[in-house]
């Protein structure tokens, strides 16, 4: 299936993906409702977007007591609004922290790959988000570990100089 592949080295932290995502998902520009979230690394000198990996287990889907989460034709785990009662079990079952709860609608919400045309990938000006045929993966782990180690070394060096 096609997945969102993140290439963190290309991310500039412009947040366009968050704006595009929230606009397509909710009809308004509100990054707080975006299901892709840009995380800062190395004391805000580098950034990377993070979103649902559409995992094989589908922890949110199997946890749902009323079968309100299913798999869409493009392979995304999606919330069926008319079935979701807002019990939040999915938000605690998902070990990636990528399914959310909207207190206004009292429903869970998550990345549905925009039905096969992800707005985040389209909006990204540097192609840091690609929608491609691939195995899902941990796109950020190595990047984040390296940036953190580098930041830590600089702090240590800074402390020695200072």
């Amino acid at each position, binding site marked *: 299936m096609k997945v969102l592949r993140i290439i963190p080295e290309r991310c500039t932290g412009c947040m366009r993906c968050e704006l595009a995502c929230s606009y397509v998902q909710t009809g308004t520009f509100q990054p707080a409702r975006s299901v892709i979230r840009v995380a800062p690394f190395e004391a805000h000198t580098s950034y990377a977007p993070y979103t649902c990996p559409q995992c094989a287990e589908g922890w949110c889907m199997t946890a749902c007591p009323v079968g309100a989460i299913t798999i869409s034709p493009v392979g995304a785990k999606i919330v069926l609004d008319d079935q979701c009662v807002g019990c939040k*079990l999915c938000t605690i079952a998902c*070990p990636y*922290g990528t399914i959310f709860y909207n207190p206004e609608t009292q429903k869970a919400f998550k990345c549905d790959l925009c039905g096969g045309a992800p707005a985040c990938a389209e909006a990204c000006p540097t192609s840091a988000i690609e929608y491609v045929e691939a195995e899902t993966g941990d796109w950020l782990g190595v990047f984040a*570990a390296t940036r*953190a180690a580098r930041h830590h070394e600089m702090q240590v060096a800074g402390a020695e100089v200072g």
Partner: protein
Amino acid sequence: MATRHVIVGGGTAGLNAIRTIRAYDRGESEVILVSAERPYSRMVLPYYLGRGIAESHVFTATPAHLAQLQVQAHLGRRAASLDTAANCLTLDDGTRIEYDDLLIATGSSAVKAPVPGADSPGVHSFWTLEQARGVVAAIREGSHVVLVGAGFIAFTILNAILALKAKLTIVEIAPQLLPRMIDRTGAEMVEKWLRRHGVAIRTGATLTAIEEAEGRRRLRFREGEDLLADVVLMATGIRTNLEWLNGSAVRVNRGIVVDDHLRSSVGNVYAAGDVAEGLDLVTGQPAVHAIEPTAMEHGRVAGANMAGQDLAYRGSLLMNIVEVCHLDIASFGAWDDPTAEAVAAARPDRWAYRKLLWKGDRLIGAMILGMANDIWTTNDVGMLKGLVQAGNGLGAWKAHLRRHPFDIKPAFIASGTTARLLPETILGRPSVPVGQVM
């Protein structure tokens, strides 16, 4: 002849077992379900009480759905006894059903506090659909509802009671709210929050009797003033439904003792959900969790093994989440392990509190409180669960989380936890959605 699987109990564990059997065999075997009630989800009963959903929404398997899964259902019947030597189950109407293998998933029942008057009219439990109907009929706008017990079950119906514009008083025998879900500090925060939302609370209160008082109920306590209630809801605990196994060869400790295949002491008898004493993922010790996610995973693993797989289960992660008046309260894993190294931090201005529990550099449990509309809270609930579930050593990130317990994300991402979690599935293969089993 086709293998005959008998499933006793139509709750979360039983239905998940059935769907899993069918996901493997596509209808080749014979599946018989014995269930005292029509299958429904207990988790969603509070939303029915609050009128957020219709009663029809609570059912998890309609007769048509069961027929589609090729399940022969004995609904309204209870299991009466089990003869494991003859591989035969007897129902309460005398029907005898022979099996090749059998799953015990009879769940648990609500227990009322043992005080005089507990069984009088106007005193309800909220556990089964039938009981929920009784409560739905009893609460009216302006009713004074006294909720006896301040545990998870009580808290799941709190929003619904307030949504019905009833006046609510919570009475708890323990010195704090949610004694089996959060620590004292968290409970104090929750108590303050609820008082602010108009809920009266009495902790450390021992109920001694419930009396009739001109159509209302008078609650008497060991100390302190009486309370007058229109409706009394007892959420004072549950007990597993195992009496019918008395005299059988199935070994019972706190629950039915099961191995990592969810098999009981009798090789072709499995147990799942509230009745099963299975492995706890974090402690590696046997435990009875009696929570929905454990019932779901138990049911699936048992179903897979009944369908002929050889599937070992790593164990269940204890977890609970409940929202009251837009405050999220969650805990998981060994959140109350007194031997763990605990780090707690509060941000009272945001009603945020959390506690992380460590063994070495592994996170083994967590507690989290925060506003439901605070993105931090929901984001971190999942990631903390992921860190406890993955159980990986966090190395230098432990120091980061000790200093910044509200900054989970970089630790989660940079520790490679996603890479550890992605290959993990309960059944060793991608999950199938409920509607796409057959």
